C-alpha cells in the first residue's frame, strides 16, 4: 500500500476550502450528533491540515483501518442502528473524517465534497426553516468553490474562485427554479422510511399526573396554525380536541395506549347548529393525534379516523408537517344513548386513594337535586372558595387530589380537571379528561390563528342522561380569563401576572408575529408545494389539469429554452472582439486591389504598390489609405467612417 512518503503541499490551496465546505455542511448537524463525532471530524481536519503544512506522510493504512472500525462501532453503539437521518449523518461525518486521512491527491477531495453535499441534504431532511434556503444556496456556492480550487492554479486568488462559482450558481438558479416548479410532485412515497430525527418533538404527553413536577409547557413553539373560512369562533369556543384520558390509578390519568379506530364514533355524533370550516397546518408531533375543533365532523386527511372516544387519530404517526381541512360543529350531542359506550370504564375510582374527595363528592351529590345541579355546585365551589390558578403549583403527595382540594388549593388546568373528573366519578357520573389546546392567537399579519404548545389545556367531559358527553372546563370557573382571553391575551392584559406569566414587550411580540406569518407562508407555499399546490399553480398558469407527462414536457421545454439563453450569454462572454468597421472596409479595398499585403508591409507602402501594380485610380487609393489611417488611429469620427465607406464602395 502506501509508502511512508511525505505530502508535497499541493493540497494547500484547496484543502482549507474543502474543510470549510465540510464544516459548513456539518454545522446544522452539530446539535444532534454525539459530541465525539464532531470532535473526531474536527481533530482529523486539524491533523490532516498540519500534515500538509509540515509535509508529513499521511497515517499508515493499518491505523486508518483501525480508526474506521472503531468509529463505525461507535456509531452502532450510540444509535443501535445505521438507518435514519441521525445515524446516517453521523456515518457521513465519520466517513469524511476518515477520508481526510487518506486524501493525498487533489482529486481525492471530490469524495469529501460529495459527502458535504449529502450532509447538506440530510440536514434539510431533518429540518426546513426559512433560513434553510439561504443556507443551502451558500452551501452549494462554498462546495463548488472548493471544487474549483481542487484543480485551480496555485496562484489563483480565492476571490476569483468564489466569483466563478457564484456566477455559475447564479446561472443555474433559473434552471433550478423551473425544474422545481414543473417537476411533477407525487403524493405517496415509494417506500416509507420514517425520518428519525433523533430529537424530542414538543407536544402533548399522553398521560397527566397532577402534582408531579409542573409539566405544563411554557414553550412558544407552534403546535399548529389555522385558517378559518368565514368567522373565527369566539375564544371560549376554541377547544382543540386531542386525546382522551379515562384510566386513573389514583395518581396518573392515562388513555388508550394504542390508537384505536371506531366505526360507530361518527354515527354517534349528532351535529347541531352551524358548521365551522377551517384549514389546519400542523407541526410534526410523532404522535397519532390530529387536532380539530370540538367536535370534528369532516376532514380530508388520509388514513385518519375517529377513535371510540371521539379523538381524531391518524394511523401513521405525524412525523412531517401536515395540512388538512376540517369541518367542526360547536353544538353537538355525542353518545346520547347510554348503551353506546362502556359506562364502567368512566366510573373507575381506585379504592382507598383520595378518600376525602370521595366523601365530599358524595355529600355534595346528595345535596344537589340532579347530576346537572351537582356539576354546577362543584364549579361554584371552585369559583367562590379560595382556589387559585397558577402555573407554578406546589407538589402534591400520594393522594394528590385530596391534597389539592383541601390543602394547597392552587394549580392549573390539569389539577382542576383531575379533581373535577374524580368528584364526578365519586358521585356516579361518568367522566373523562380531554387533552388538547385551548385558545390560539389571531395573527393580524397574514390573518390566521397560531396555537402554541403553551396553549395546551386539559378539560373534562361528563356524561349526562339525554345530553350525552358534555364538555365542562373547571379551569374556566377558577380563571375565566384563561379561557376568555386565551393565554397570550391574559399575558398582555395583566391577569397572567398572577399565574406567574410575565408580559413581554409588545414590539417584540409584533415582530414574533410578523416572523411567524412569514414562516406560515413559507410552510404553505415552499415546503408545502405538493400535488395540490402544484395543480393550483399550473391552473393559474393556464394549464388545465395537466398530468405528469404534460408537466415533464413543459419542464423540458422551459429548461431547454433557459439553457439556450444561458449558452448564448456565455458565448457573448467568450466571443472574440468584433473587427471594427474600418478594418472590414479596408479588407474590402485589399480584395478589390487584387494584391496581398506582405507581412510587415504598412498601409502606406501597400498603397504605393497598389498604385504601381493595380488598375485602381491612384487618387482613390491614396484617399482610402489616408482615411483608413485617420479612422483607425485618429479620434473617433463617424463622418470619416462614412467617407471611407463611400470611397471603398465607389471603387
Amino acid at each position: 500500500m502506501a509508502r511512508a512518503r511525505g505530502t508535497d503541499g499541493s493540497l494547500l490551496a484547496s484543502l482549507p476550502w474543502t474543510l470549510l465546505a465540510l464544516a459548513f455542511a456539518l454545522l446544522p448537524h452539530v446539535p444532534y450528533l454525539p459530541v465525539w463525532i464532531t470532535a473526531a471530524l474536527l481533530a482529523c481536519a486539524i491533523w490532516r491540515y498540519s500534515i500538509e503544512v509540515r509535509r508529513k506522510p499521511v497515517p499508515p493504512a493499518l491505523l486508518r483501518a483501525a480508526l474506521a472500525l472503531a468509529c463505525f462501532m461507535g456509531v452502532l453503539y450510540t444509535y443501535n442502528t445505521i438507518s435514519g437521518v441521525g445515524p446516517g449523518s453521523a456515518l457521513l461525518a465519520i466517513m469524511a473524517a476518515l477520508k481526510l486521512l487518506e486524501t493525498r491527491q487533489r482529486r481525492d477531495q471530490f469524495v469529501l465534497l460529495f459527502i458535504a453535499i449529502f450532509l447538506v441534504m440530510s440536514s434539510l431532511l431533518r429540518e426546513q426553516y426559512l433560513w434553510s434556503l439561504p443556507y443551502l444556496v451558500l452551501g452549494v456556492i462554498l462546495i463548488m468553490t472548493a471544487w474549483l480550487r481542487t484543480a485551480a492554479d496555485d496562484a489563483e486568488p480565492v476571490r476569483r474562485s468564489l466569483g466563478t462559482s457564484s456566477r455559475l450558481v447564479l446561472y443555474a438558479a433559473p434552471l433550478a427554479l423551473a425544474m422545481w416548479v414543473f417537476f411533477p410532485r407525487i403524493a405517496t412515497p415509494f417506500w416509507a422510511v420514517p425520518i428519525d430525527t433523533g430529537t424530542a418533538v414538543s407536544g402533548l404527553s399522553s398521560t397527566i399526573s397532577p402534582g408531579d413536577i409542573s409539566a405544563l409547557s411554557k414553550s412558544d413553539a407552534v403546535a399548529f396554525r389555522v385558517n378559518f373560512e368565514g368567522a373565527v369562533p369566539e375564544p371560549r369556543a376554541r377547544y382543540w380536541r386531542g386525546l382522551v384520558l379515562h384510566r386513573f390509578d389514583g395518581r396518573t390519568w392515562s388513555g388508550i395506549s394504542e390508537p384505536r379506530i371506531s366505526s360507530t364514533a361518527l354515527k354517534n355524533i349528532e351535529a347541531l347548529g352551524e358548521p365551522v370550516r377551517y384549514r389546519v397546518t400542523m407541526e410534526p408531533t410523532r404522535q397519532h393525534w390530529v387536532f380539530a375543533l370540538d367536535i370534528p365532523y369532516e376532514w380530508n386527511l388520509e388514513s385518519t379516523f375517529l377513535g371510540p372516544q371521539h379523538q381524531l387519530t391518524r394511523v401513521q404517526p405525524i412525523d412531517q408537517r401536515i395540512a388538512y381541512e376540517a369541518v367542526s360543529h360547536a353544538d353537538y350531542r355525542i353518545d346520547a344513548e347510554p348503551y353506546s359506550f362502556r359506562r364502567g370504564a368512566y366510573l373507575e375510582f381506585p379504592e382507598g386513594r383520595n378518600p376525602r374527595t370521595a366523601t365530599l363528592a358524595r355529600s355534595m351529590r346528595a345535596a344537589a337535586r340532579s347530576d346537572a345541579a351537582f356539576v354546577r355546585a362543584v364549579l361554584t365551589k371552585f369559583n367562590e372558595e379560595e382556589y387559585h390558578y397558577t402555573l407554578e403549583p406546589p407538589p402534591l403527595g400520594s393522594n394528590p387530589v385530596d391534597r389539592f382540594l383541601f390543602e394547597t388549593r392552587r394549580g392549573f388546568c390539569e389539577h382542576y380537571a383531575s379533581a373535577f373528573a374524580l368528584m364526578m366519578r365519586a358521585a356516579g357520573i361518568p367522566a373523562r379528561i380531554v387533552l388538547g389546546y385551548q385558545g390560539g392567537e389571531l395573527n393580524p399579519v397574514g390573518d390566521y390563528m397560531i396555537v402554541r404548545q403553551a396553549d395546551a389545556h386539559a378539560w373534562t367531559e361528563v356524561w349526562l342522561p339525554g345530553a350525552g358527553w358534555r364538555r365542562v372546563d373547571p379551569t374556566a370557573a377558577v380563571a375565566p380569563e384563561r379561557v376568555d382571553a386565551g393565554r397570550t391575551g391574559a399575558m398582555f392584559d395583566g391577569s397572567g401576572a398572577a399565574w406567574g406569566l410575565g408580559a413581554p414587550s409588545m414590539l417584540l411580540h409584533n415582530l414574533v408575529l410578523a416572523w411567524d406569518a412569514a414562516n406560515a407562508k413559507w410552510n404553505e407555499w415552499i415546503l408545502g408545494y405538493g400535488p395540490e399546490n402544484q395543480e393550483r399553480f399550473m391552473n393559474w398558469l393556464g394549464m388545465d389539469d395537466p398530468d405528469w407527462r404534460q408537466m415533464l414536457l413543459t419542464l423540458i421545454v422551459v429548461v431547454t429554452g433557459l439553457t439556450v439563453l444561458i449558452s448564448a450569454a456565455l458565448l457573448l462572454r467568450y466571443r472574440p472582439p468584433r473587427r471594427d468597421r474600418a478594418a472590414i472596409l479596408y479588407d474590402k479595398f485589399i480584395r478589390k486591389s487584387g494584391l496581398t499585403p506582405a507581412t510587415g508591409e504598412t498601409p502606406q507602402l501597400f498603397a504605393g504598390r497598389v498604385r504601381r501594380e493595380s488598375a485602381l485610380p491612384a487618387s482613390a487609393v491614396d484617399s482610402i489609405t489616408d482615411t483608413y489611417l485617420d479612422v483607425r488611429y485618429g479620434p473617433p469620427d463617424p463622418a470619416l467612417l462614412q467617407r471611407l465607406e463611400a470611397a471603398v464602395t465607389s471603387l
Partner: protein
Amino acid sequence: MSSIRWLSPSRLLPGINRAASRRVRLWARRRQGVDGPVTRLEPRRIYILPTGVGLIFALMTFAMLLGSMNYNNNLSFVLTFMLIGVGFVAMHQCQRNLVALEVSFAGVEPVFAGQSAQFRIAVANRSKSPRHRIRLYIDDAHSDTKDLEPGESRIFVLPVRTEQRGRITLERFGLRTLFPFELFRAWAWLHMYPRGIVYPHPAEHVPPPPASQTALGHRQHDARGEEDFAGLRKFHVGDSPRNVAWKAYARNDQLLSKQFAGADMSSQWFDFDTVAGDDLEQRLAILTRWVIDADRTQEDYGLRLPGQSFPPAHGEAHRRQCLEALALFGLENPDG
C-alpha cells in the same frame, strides 16, 4: 490514482475505445480539413463528453432526486435541482472555455534522434474573459495546464518522442479543458502539421577524425602570436567582436573577421567517403559526433557529403547547416 479515474469509460473498455477513437479522429480530420497556420477554434469543432466524475455526479443527483421525491421534501428538491442546474451550466461553460481561442505553431528546436522534440504551440485568448485550465495533448504526452488572461497569448510545449533522423511532423494534437468542475471534458483536434528536424543520434565511441584532412594540408604551429595579421575572412556567428574589421565594415558594409597567424587556424574536413564502415546511419552518426565535438572546441571544420560540401567554418549557423544536411542526407523526400 483515485478510484474515480478508474471508472472512466476509456478505462473500462480499452480495446473498443482505441478503435473507436481512431475512427472518430479520422472523421474529425475529414470534417475539419487541414488547419491554417493560425486557427481559431469555432464552436462546431469543439467536442464534449462527461468525465468519470461527471457520471458519478449525475448518479448522485439522480439518487438525490429519488430521495427528495420519497420524502416529498421541497428544500432537498431545491438542492437537487440546483446541482443539476450547475451541471448543465458547467457543460456549456466547459465548451465555451475553448471557443474562439487562436492556435498557432511557434516553432520547435531541432533535437538529436532519441531526444524529445519540444513543439511550441501558441494559444491566444482574444476575448474579454479569462480562459482556465487549458492543456495541449497528443497520444502519449501533454503540456502543462495553463490559464489565459483576456488578451493573453501563451506558449504550450508538447514533448514528442523521436526515433530516427529526418523531418518530424506533428500530425495532430488536441486542446482540452476540464474546467470548471471536471464534470465534462471539452476538446478540439488540430491538424496543422507543424514540422521540425531531427538530427542523427551522435555515435558514442568514435575514432578521432583523420589528421590528414587538415585544411591546406598542414597545421600552423609557428608561434607568431595574435598580433600577426594573416588576412580577412567572412564573419561567422561566434567570432569575437574584438576581431571584427570595423574599418572594413564602415567602408563597404560587409562584416569581416581578422585572422591572425598565431591563432589556432586548424580547420578540418569531415568527409563521408573517408569514414569507415558500410552502414549509412552509422557513418552519419560518426560524422555527427565529429561535428558536435569540433563545434564544442570552436575549431573550424568542413563537411563533405556525396553531392554536398560545406567549407570549413564554425559557429551556430554552420553547425546547424551541417547537422541539417546530415539529418536529411539520403532521404527519399526530405521535405515531405
